[in-house]
């Protein structure tokens, strides 16, 4: 915690005005409450300024004239005090009111901002998540929202009330005594000058401190990650001394930063005492000469005492607000990211066959699905969902000028099993990412049941495909809920059937609470193989015509895989399946195997063909070549 005067080198917002305007837009949802806040702040500030002014009439009219009198008339005095009490009561009420109202507004605004941020994040294309780390996005929800909360519930109201108080005090000072006010202004300029000088120095070291903190954290992260390596190489001492070095740097930067921040407070304090005594001395002389009365001096002195406090508040709040604005800007940056575009018009609907074999839309689940394809003339075509996928000369790159896939053509007829083999970076996963439109092919040459996939609504397209990924990603919740993720309205029976299909039923039964066992943090209480089985069951309950298995079994040992295989085989029956695998034993019985290298298919055929061809696949299979 830096002293109240410190100016932390807040990450400065790039466009303060624009960001502020956007925040205002959120706040204006609370117009009435906001107006009430403004009134309350004015009342509160006015009360604190006016209260002090009361000293003058009290002293001048009700105290001084009666000094020494035996039978003073106290009624006027009493009513004056009563009025003061009333003003103060109003002030306290105002302060409470604006704080309370602001709390409502700020929590409501933050709630809205959070949910908007989350919903928007969900709609962003996968590409965005490739280029932004989780930590980066998480800090939007933690740091940035937190600073924004500070600013909304304390920063802005305090800033306004302090500013109003300062203006009010200054006005009253001028009214009371212009001459003394000149003196105050003069000393004030001196104070501001000192503040800027020392504040600047401490800001420099605060910046350095920030940088050093980053270095220290980076080092800690790396060493925690490699903790076991450090231990087996007995490097503890060396690591410790390296850490000491950077920690020392941080210490020096922090010490300097806080020294300057720390001495600022006493210096300003002493200057304001000086101001007080100077005003008192000058006021006394003026009073002796008869230019000014005692009551005026009393309230003027009181004003000089209270003057510096709101000034501190302002300088403190300003830097906090700048930090918050920078945070808000980062939040808006995420909100401004373009969501996945979806110009699809083809929808997936339940269907049934009419007598003449024509398709007709059905309300409820019929076991049959159809693509609902509106024509230009307004008529609607229905075609059955079969799971026929074709790539026609597809070229794709995540970044421009960097092709990952180069002229890929392939077809998968309904019910076929197509496998992709190749080293990391050959483009295997990219192909599957294109099928479900995690990424868009610039010129759409991927057809699904003969329909250009760019024309299919993304949600419908993805519903017709099911993916089992290498990293299973289970969610916090029961086993049942996790499997049901594949189809939210699945009955318990459907879930259990899916689990049986995936060969997961037997191990689930043995869990302490069966299907109601809670899974925590990505299913840490299950083995890798069990997690994988759940992921397969999850895909099974969705019951899609097309299945994508992306390295689904690569982190399981071959023996466990043999157990899963049965579940997989039942699942794959009658579906179009795309398999990506590292391990060739997984893909051997595919209808067609594509060997990818540098984004092109260099070999294709079934296992026997490829072995007979004695090409790359043969080399891979016999272990003559490295897959990495």
């Amino acid at each position, binding site marked *: 915690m830096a002293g109240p005067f410190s100016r932390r080198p807040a990450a400065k917002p790039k466009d303060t005005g624009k960001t502020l305007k956007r925040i205002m837009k959120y706040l204006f949802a609370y117009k009435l409450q906001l107006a009430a806040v403004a009134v309350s702040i004015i009342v509160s500030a006015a009360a604190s300024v006016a209260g002090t002014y009361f000293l003058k009439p009290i002293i001048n009219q009700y105290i001084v004239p009666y000094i020494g009198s035996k039978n003073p008339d106290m009624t006027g005095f009493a009513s004056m005090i009563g009025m003061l009490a009333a003003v103060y009561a109003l002030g306290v009420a105002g302060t409470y009111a604006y704080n309370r109202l602001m709390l409502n507004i700020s929590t409501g605004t933050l709630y809205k901002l959070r949910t908007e941020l989350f919903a928007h994040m969900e709609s962003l294309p996968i590409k965005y998540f490739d280029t932004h780390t989780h930590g980066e996005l998480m800090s939007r929800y933690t740091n940035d929202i937190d600073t924004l909360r500070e600013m909304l519930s304390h920063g802005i109201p305090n800033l306004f009330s302090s500013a109003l108080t300062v203006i009010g005090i200054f006005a009253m000072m001028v009214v009371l005594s212009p001459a003394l006010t000149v003196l105050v202004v003069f000393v004030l300029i001196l104070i501001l000058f000192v503040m800027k000088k020392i504040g600047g120095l401490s800001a420099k070291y605060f910046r350095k401190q920030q940088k050093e903190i980053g270095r220290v954290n980076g080092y800690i992260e790396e060493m925690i990650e490699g903790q076991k390596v450090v231990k087996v190489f007995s490097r503890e001492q060396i690591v410790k001394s390296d850490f000491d070095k950077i920690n020392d740097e941080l210490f020096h930067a922090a010490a300097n930063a806080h020294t300057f921040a720390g001495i600022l407070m006493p210096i300003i304090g002493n200057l304001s005492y000086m101001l007080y005594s100077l005003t008192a001395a000058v006021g006394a002389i003026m009073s002796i000469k008869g230019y000014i009365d005692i009551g005026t001096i009393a309230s003027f002195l009181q004003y000089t005492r209270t003057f510096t406090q709101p000034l501190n508040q302002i300088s403190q709040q300003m830097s906090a607000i700048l930090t918050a604005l920078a945070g808000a800007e980062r939040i808006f940056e995420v909100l401004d990211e373009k969501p996945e575009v979806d110009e699809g018009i083809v929808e997936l609907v339940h269907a049934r066959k009419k007598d003449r074999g024509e398709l007709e839309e059905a309300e409820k689940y019929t076991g049959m699905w159809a693509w609902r394809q509106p024509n230009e003339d307004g008529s609607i075509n229905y075609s059955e969902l079969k799971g026929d996928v074709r790539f026609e000369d597809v070229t794709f790159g995540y970044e421009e000028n960097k092709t990952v896939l180069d002229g890929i053509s392939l077809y998968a007829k309904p019910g076929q099993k197509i496998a992709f083999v190749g080293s990391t970076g050959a483009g295997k996963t990219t192909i599957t990412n294109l099928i479900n439109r995690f990424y868009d092919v610039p010129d759409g040459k991927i057809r699904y049941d003969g329909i250009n996939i760019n024309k299919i609504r993304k949600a419908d397209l993805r519903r017709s495909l099911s993916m089992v990924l290498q990293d299973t990603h289970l969610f916090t919740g029961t086993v049942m809920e996790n499997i049901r993720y594949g189809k939210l309205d699945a009955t318990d029976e459907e879930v259990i059937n899916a689990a049986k299909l995936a060969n997961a039923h037997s191990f689930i039964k043995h869990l302490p609470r069966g299907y109601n066992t809670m899974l925590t943090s990505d299913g840490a209480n299950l083995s890798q193989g069990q997690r994988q089985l759940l992921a397969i069951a999850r895909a099974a309950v969705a019951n899609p015509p097309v299945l994508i298995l992306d390295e689904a079994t690569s982190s399981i040992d071959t023996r466990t895989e043999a157990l899963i295989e049965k579940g997989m085989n039942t699942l794959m029956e009658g579906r179009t399946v795309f398999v990506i695998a590292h391990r060739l034993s997984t893909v051997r019985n595919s209808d067609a195997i594509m060997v990818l290298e540098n984004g092109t298919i260099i070999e294709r055929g079934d296992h026997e063909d490829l072995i007979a061809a004695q090409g790359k696949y043969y080399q891979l299979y016999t272990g003559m070549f490295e897959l*990495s």
Partner: protein
Amino acid sequence: MNASVQECLIAIRVVKAFVREDHENEKFRAAADAVRKAQLKAEKMLILNMPIMQFVMYCCMIAISWFGGRMIIGGTLLTGEFMSFISYVGQIMMSLMMISFVFVVVVMSRASAFRIAEVLDEEIDIRDSSGNKDLKVEDGSVVFDSVSFSYSKNKDNLTLNDCSFEIKPGETVGIIGGTGSGKTSLVQLIPRLYDVIEGRVLVGGHDVRDYKLGILRNAVAVVLQKNVLFSGTIKENLRWGNVEATDSEIIEACKTAQAHDFIASFPEGYDTYLGQGGVNVSGGQKQRLSIARALLKRPKMLILDDSTSAVDTATDSKIRQALRENLKDTTKIIIAQRITSVSDADRIIVMDDGRINAIGTHDELLAANSIYREVYESQQKGVA
């Protein structure tokens, strides 16, 4: 709420693949609403702070004006004294505010202090032996004497259960078994990354707990399953094994680990800079660098924990051959998924569910052990 964001970020592909964005939004909205309510409740108290402070201050002012005024009129107080008094009250108020502020900060930092203290107080359960300080590791023999081990120190949840075997110096031993069967746990006991619960582990004829940790770990080189390289040049990373290694020693170790060729192919060779975690080399290259790093220790014992999984079988066998030729006296323990990686070992230990299922040579196991045969067959299918 943060947990739900985190979970969603990690699993974004699953969320999208199953078109569950709305479902997740619904979940998040509930969490965010709970946060809002909690915040409202907590801050309701906090915002009383300011008005109460003002209230007290204002009461003081009124009281002083009233009583002070009467005293001045009564002649018991001078106007100047009255004004000093008001000033003092102001000062006291300021100080009180400061104290309350500090108090809040102290309360807030107390929680953090506790958490720091928790880490500092965490008992170091693996302590250097107090016994013979100069005890050296004489040879690379290993004995497991009915060892049981559990990460949670809970005897009902054993990761390793009553494991006994002996390894002679210079022997090559393979360990094979399914995921979670305890292979990694087994070898981590040798350099004392963990301590046993029951039984003992002997290295070079002495209990590992009798050695100084530094001496023990310098004699036992482990190439971990999760290879971690650090930011720095390749050479700097390799020197973790031996700070004083000469360039020629480094090259020799890399040749044994079959890493020299690819390092030499980099434009900057051994001075190539690796990013954090070695992001700019492939998995197989990382594994070979880690092996070279371990070799530089010139260990009495080398443990490869699934360290060649991303290396192709041809290179894998070259590495094993080089190890056999160049490190004759070093005991080699090789954990692997691939049968081919261990089939030429002197002996193979088959692990299953934390127990030693069988020990024997490739041929013996193939003939007599069902697990081994299953693994073998699942990997050989179709290879004629």
